[in-house]
């Protein structure tokens, strides 16, 4: 299953974890889901805009690329070991993480939460 990023703005609105860890967060995240690209723009700690590709020369701070198969496992209600966390996927080469790693480290809780929110409601 492809990442349901078209629903991310709605899903993330009012999330208490994002509010707790997103102070002053502004960032553009390019997400590669198989052959599809998405651009998530975050401003003042909120998901301001989500754009589905193809993207023309996107300005990005952080790029996360994984196969659709890997992303779909990541967002299962109980993801299997190795797919349950962005860094778990990094360890096992299921994801490529590039860009401003300082920004990534500063807002890592937020960014991990953003993708965990795509899991079924009861698993968030």
């Amino acid at each position, binding site marked *: 299953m492809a990442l349901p990023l078209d629903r991310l703005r709605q899903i993330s609105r009012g999330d208490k974890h994002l509010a707790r860890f997103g102070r002053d967060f502004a960032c553009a995240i390019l997400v590669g889901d198989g052959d599809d690209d998405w651009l998530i723009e975050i401003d003042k700690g909120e998901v301001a805009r989500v754009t589905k590709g193809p993207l023309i020369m996107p300005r990005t701070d952080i790029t996360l690329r994984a196969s659709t198969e890997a992303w779909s496992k990541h967002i299962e209600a*109980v993801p299997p070991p190795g797919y349950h966390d962005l860094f778990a996927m990094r360890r096992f080469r299921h994801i490529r993480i590039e860009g401003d790693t300082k920004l990534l480290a500063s807002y890592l809780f937020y960014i991990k939460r953003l993708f965990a929110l795509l899991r079924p409601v009861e*698993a968030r």
Partner: protein
Amino acid sequence: MNVEIEPVTGRYMRLDFEGRPHRIYWEEAGQGIPMLCLHTAGSDGRQYRGLLNDPEITRDFRVIVFDMPWHGKSSPPPGFETEEYKLTTKTYSDMVLTVSRALQLEKPVVMGCSIGGRIALVLAMEHPSEFRAIIGLQSGAAIERYYELDWLHHPEVHGAEASAAVVSGLMAPTSPDADRWETLWHYMQGGPGIFKGDLYFYRGEDGDIRDRLGRIDVTKCPLYLLTGEYDYSVAPQDTQAAADLIPGVKYQVMPKLGHFPMSENPDLFLSYLKPVLAQIRGSR
């Protein structure tokens, strides 16, 4: 008002270690066979709160958990302000032996997790006669570097919160929220650069013991390894790789647990640990 006072006591010891004065905090509960527990990198002894509060365990075991120097309520030594903290195999190993002797423990069981699980292997290799049994949680002989440590200690990044975010995924998604966040809080409270300094031992050449593991003789001291399936820092296959080099070691994967079994889901962890402790209790 309903108040429950835990049977856990905390005290400080003052002693010289590596030629410098230290003030080390430890907690304990129970009586019987001494069991010295070692926390993970960048955390402290609160990880073992489930063990310290379990009457079935403390009936037969005196559970002792100390905060490593620079961690928890143990202070860094005088002069820390001008140095960068970097743990080494020798310092860590000597520290465990020093605390054990300071408390006059007679052939304790030692149980360590993560960096503590690594030093458990070192102790099994170099000091088997000092211990009744050794338990390594999330033990590996070396680990793969899969992320950069630079931002864990940087003036412009909240290193403790970043460290907590890094380790947050190491737990099983099924572990209870309250225990997972308690585990992360310990990381959020870590001193500047301490998690990174512990990983110096863990990720560096100094701590890589793959070529020496075969020296472990479990007839001198039984060795048990338990690893949570969701850990990707020391994944089950990493512990298996170590276990393959140690004849006679007892290794078990713990389903539905991750890198912090004793802290992320104490009840589930104890269900895996108690049969091991029963074996240790029955042996002499």
